[in-house]
């Protein structure tokens, strides 16, 4: 069994009775109706569910981009739901990495500078930024493309740059929102193999929203959402063994 496999260790993320209500009064919409969810450090979790099932709202809360209306959210044992906007930003800066469906790279900006961006906010010196960013680009196999802008890169390459940007700060958790949604199946598999490799080799906990069962198959755990609740959690031991 690999050392980073989900075991008895304390969960890195723990949601208890989390609700999210949009709007007020008669028009209020209850997106989350009480989520309980534990995620073990080093896990690779796929989040699935129909649109409106609450999976995106949950990911926003897990990504510290949004706050629950009620309930508790513990990250590494610390309450997140009480943090203010800037405190959550600092938490994201230090512990989280994001990969989006639409890549969300800065246009007209080289791959290297895109990857350097989080380090800029961390206040790293220029030399360290360059070295760390080049190392991250090497991990995703794009070190030779460092001076290309997103417009000069293919979709798969852009998503690799986005992954390099997400991992350059060595985050604890990587949140990926349909990372393969804009890619063909061949590129999708490459991206999934990259994420699996990072999860396995760099001990990064990966949370990934996906619609595609083939992509979810790469995960160790699949969380199914339905109507604002966790419907069921499915462990895929065979997959864990396969990638290990």
């Amino acid at each position: 069994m690999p050392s980073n496999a989900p075991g008895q260790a304390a969960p890195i993320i723990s949601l208890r009775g989390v609700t999210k209500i949009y709007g007020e009064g008669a028009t209020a919409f209850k997106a989350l109706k009480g989520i309980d969810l534990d995620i073990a450090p080093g896990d690779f979790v796929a989040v699935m569910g129909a649109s409106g099932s609450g999976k995106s709202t949950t990911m926003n809360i897990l990504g510290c981009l949004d706050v629950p209306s009620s309930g508790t959210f513990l990250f590494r044992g610390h309450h997140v739901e009480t943090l203010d906007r800037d405190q959550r930003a600092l938490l994201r800066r230090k512990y989280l990495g994001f990969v989006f469906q639409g890549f969300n790279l800065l246009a007209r900006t080289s791959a290297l500078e895109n990857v350097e961006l989080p380090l800029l906010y961390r206040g790293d010196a220029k030399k360290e930024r360059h070295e760390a960013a080049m190392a991250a680009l090497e991990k995703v196999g794009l070190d030779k493309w460092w001076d290309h802008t997103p417009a000069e890169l293919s979709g798969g390459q852009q998503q690799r740059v986005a992954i390099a940007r997400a991992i350059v700060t060595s985050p604890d958790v990587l949140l990926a929102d349909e990372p393969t949604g804009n890619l063909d199946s061949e590129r999708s598999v490459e991206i999934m193999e990259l994420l699996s490799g990072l999860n396995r080799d760099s001990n990064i906990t990966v949370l990934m929203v996906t619609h595609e069962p083939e992509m979810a198959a790469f995960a160790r755990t699949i969380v199914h959402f339905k109507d604002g609740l966790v419907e069921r959690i499915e462990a895929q031991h065979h997959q864990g063994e396969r990638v290990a």
Partner: protein
Amino acid sequence: MLGTTFLLAIRSIARHKLRSFLTTLGIIIGVAAVVTMVTLGQATTAAVQKSISSLGTNILQVRPGQGFGRGGGGPQPPNFKPEDVDAIAHQIAGVTAVAPQAQSSTTAIYEGANWSTTINGTTRAYFEVQPWPLTSGRTFTEAEEQAGKAVCIVGSTVAKNLFNGGEAIGARIRLSGISCDVIGTLSTRGQAGFGGDQDDVVIMPIKTVQRRFTGNRDIRLMLVGVDDAYSTAAVQASIEDLLRERRNINGSKQDDFNIFDTAQISNTLTATTNLLTQIVTAVAAISLIVGGIGIMNIMLVSVTERTREIGIRLAIGAVAREVLTQFLVEAVALSMLGGVIGLLLAQVVVGILSALGGLPFLFVPEINLIAFAISALIGVVFGYFPARRAAALNPIDALRHE
């Protein structure tokens, strides 16, 4: 971090060159107008003061007639007589010297050269009441004045045109058929504040001029030197009283002469220049405000255009203050760019206008510094609102922005 932010701001401005230039136009015009006007105002004031001080301070000019702009009809008021000069010189306390003047036009001839000029008849007092040093030779002796000898002192323009750099002292020039020995040459005084070359003159004893040229004892102008210890206004009032008495002007009748304090010209011109500077500065201030609004507008557009970028930065972990700083720095960089272009433009315009107006080229560090600081301040003031808006964006909505 701020250095990097500044570089990013410059890059973002460079990405939209035309748009940035048009946005900063208001600032450019405002800064250029302020700097140009204040600089030209100071140059004019300095030039006026210089020409006034070359005329001499503490000098009263006494002329027959009712002064500038007044008078008009009626009989010509009588000119002064030599007795008036003596009366002022001897009866009024605080008068250092009185220089009478009688003028005539003539053509000066020396060997092959001839030159149209003005003869100014006066006394040695002329060189006492005002600073006008000789470059060579001497002024008249008392004997020459009394006898009305044909001796003359030439201004630098006359000297240049008659002698062309050669020795003037001892030369005998002809003025309207009268031979005259040159005994002195004057230093260059330059243009008068109101045009006219002060150096285009031949100075002779007043008796000589009256006898040989004007044919009468009339004095058209008296320059009265006032002792520093006395008030010019008080001396002016005493002279007025004395002349009214001598010219039999009683009761409420108006003076038929005028006394002019040269310092007044300086004050009037300075006040006019200041007023003009203030008006243009006010207009320029409006231009700066309009420029600021332009910057605010373009920054709001920029924030909307770059909503996704802001979302990415926030998701990555930028705190609100960092996003605010980024857009604020961009607005300030934009307005400072306008400020710099405005300053450069101002130097060019000042250079051209100074050359056209015959003024010395001035660079006034203070006004350039102030104008630049104001341009930066405009960036802060008008950039704050758009920057606040950027910083307040919700990262989730910003990332979804199309």
